[in-house]
């Protein structure tokens, strides 16, 4: 499980994150949602161990981040950057196996794991022989998930996984992503600004605003028992299309 306790972060004199408490139980999918400037990217980078924080704890399975080296911590979190973040100079399967190679895995072990993950995300073998610029948005996203899952981390962290995809692909990939998470059985934290996506993918949602958590809970709780007017404002801001009866 992933746990953030009392996390604070200031840049110079500005408080960017205050009193962050967040707990994602083992095997659960959680969405961190907020508009741009809410501090969600900072929280993501703290969780990845990329930047230091002022106070509090970040823990995976009750072991705090600060007790690990960066390399050890990275092995516990599988990270899927925005738009997949594949390295452009190497092919799909090299992107997937890069870290395993650095860690000295045997070739056969690497091949086995790549094959296992390929089936799990439902990719054609030929896609892994392509360079990132030869892949579609959905393919890149899947290869990126394979790469994140390669070292069998406890937690998966996804940054705006659908942001760059067109609506139709986005729709079908959301369903597949949900299935993939199910099959992987991992603790997942998705960072997004899209409430619809958060509701669809995650059991619980945390809404971040100006560096503070406004409310954490199921969508139902946010809808019916908003902790703050901002929650309602945020929910209502998601424009829904008028249905057939409203459009003559």
């Amino acid at each position, binding site marked *: 499980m992933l746990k953030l306790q009392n996390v604070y972060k200031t840049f110079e004199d500005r408080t960017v994150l205050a009193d962050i408490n967040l707990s994602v139980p083992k095997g659960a999918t959680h969405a961190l949602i907020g508009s741009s400037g809410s501090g969600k990217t900072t929280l993501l980078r703290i969780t990845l161990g990329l930047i230091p924080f002022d106070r509090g704890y970040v823990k995976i399975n009750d072991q705090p981040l600060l007790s690990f080296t960066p390399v050890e911590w990275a092995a516990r979190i599988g*990270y899927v950057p925005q738009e997949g973040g594949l390295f452009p100079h190497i092919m799909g399967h090299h992107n997937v196996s890069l870290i395993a190679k650095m860690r000295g895995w045997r070739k056969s072990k690497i091949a086995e794991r790549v094959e296992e993950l390929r089936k799990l995300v439902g990719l054609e073998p030929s896609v892994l022989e392509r360079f990132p610029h030869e892949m579609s948005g959905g393919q890149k996203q899947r290869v990126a998930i394979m790469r994140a899952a390669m070292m069998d981390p406890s937690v998966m962290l996804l940054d705006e996984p659908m942001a760059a995809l067109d609506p139709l692909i986005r729709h079908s990939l959301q369903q597949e992503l949900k299935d993939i998470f199910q099959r992987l059985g991992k603790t997942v934290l998705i960072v997004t600004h899209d409430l619809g996506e958060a509701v669809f993918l995650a059991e619980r949602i945390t809404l971040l605003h100006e560096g503070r958590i406004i409310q954490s809970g199921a969508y139902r709780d946010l809808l019916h028992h908003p902790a703050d007017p901002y929650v309602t404002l945020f929910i209502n801001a998601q424009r829904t299309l008028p249905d057939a009866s409203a459009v003559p």
Partner: protein
Amino acid sequence: MKKCLMAVLLLAAFPQFAALAATAIVVGSKVFTEGYVLGEIAAQRIESVSAVPVERKLGMGSTGILFEALNSGAIDLYADYTGTLSEAILKQPDLKSVADIQAALSKMNLVISAPLGFDDTYALAVKESFAEQHGLHTISDLTRIEGDIKAGFSYEFMDRKDGYARMAERYRLSLDPQRLSRMEHSLSFQAIDDGAVDLIDTYSTDAKIKKSKLRVLRDDRGFFPVYQAVWVARKAFVDAHPREWAALQELEGAISADAMIDMNSQADIQKLSYASIAAQFLGSEAPRSQSWQSNILRRTREHLWLVGMALLFSVLVGIPLGVTAARFHTAGQAILILSALIQTVPSLALLCFLIPLLGVGTKPALAALCLYSLLPVVLNTFTGVRTVEPQHLENARAFGLTRRQVFFRIVLPLASPTVLAGIKTATIVSIGTATLAALVGAGGYGAPIISGLSLNDVPTILTGAIPAAFMALIAYGLFEVLDFLLIPEGLRKLR
């Protein structure tokens, strides 16, 4: 105590040891026809009386370079003129007599011989037809048409103390600065032939005066000092090789002005080799010249060596410097500014600075080439590393790659197209710049180019210029292959 004393003595004596250990006698020369001819005469004269091998480093450059080469022991002797020695080297223009000049030079551990016979003084010349048209006989006559004359003067004449400025003052001559151009001496004859200029400076023994039908204007106010040709040698050489020096001294008064003009015209106009002209003068047989194939082969080897070593240096030093520059801001700016500054030093000046430190020959040429090839590699490495998207670097760290792995697995491959382009630029530029190495006796394709330039002999220039161009083309082709091998496939397809 005794041992210590011995060591001190040995160290004190070391320069002498070094001088004795140098086996060959090295003859240098300036980079114009007469210099080559005199250099060859000196070399053959020594060979005729001595078994010590003679190394020819002819066509090394102008007075400054030769003087530095002499001082550093890179050459043993060369031919120069009394006026040049007192003006350009001793900076005492009042010294006129050979004895006075010798006295001043001996403080620098240099020795000059008795005059060889002819004067080679500066002179101003115009076309015969132009002289007729304007009634020009003396330099004073020029003042009548001073506003209309297009002049082309050599760099040395423009810059020396006893050159243009003082002459203009003496004659109250004021040429239109807009119509006054500085040019390489050997090109000024071409310019006056083509009518691009009306007036040039020349040497009084220049064979091309006859060929170009020029009239030398009389120095009616006796401005130009007397330039008597003499041998200039290191004192250490004279002491170590008294017999060889005596043989050179015997040439006192042996070369008349007519003889020198003849020899110059044999070289410039009849295109005889310097070796055969010198041999004919000395009444001996010319040393066998090498075939052109073996000449080109040797020059290619020399050129390749220079370019190859410079390239190796630029890669081994330039890439780490570029990476350092990209990583540390202050040091980076210092590195970039410094390598840009090096690039702005004219190559001849850089060679001049390097001769006192490294002597003459391959070493200073190589050092200059290495320095010049640095900027493209440093700058492109810097740019290549800086333009790697920061997102990739952060992602790599998030995946748990170490700094080293990030650099070698991500940064370097992503920067490789830009880095390789820098190495390519450095190589092509080096192939061109390496032709200047011949000025300091490092050989290569520059040797025929410089010698041809001094003779205004286009075919000779081409025997250096064409292979150099071919080498550049081949290098370009090889880099295309290298691009294919070294740039990651994923990036190649992106371009």
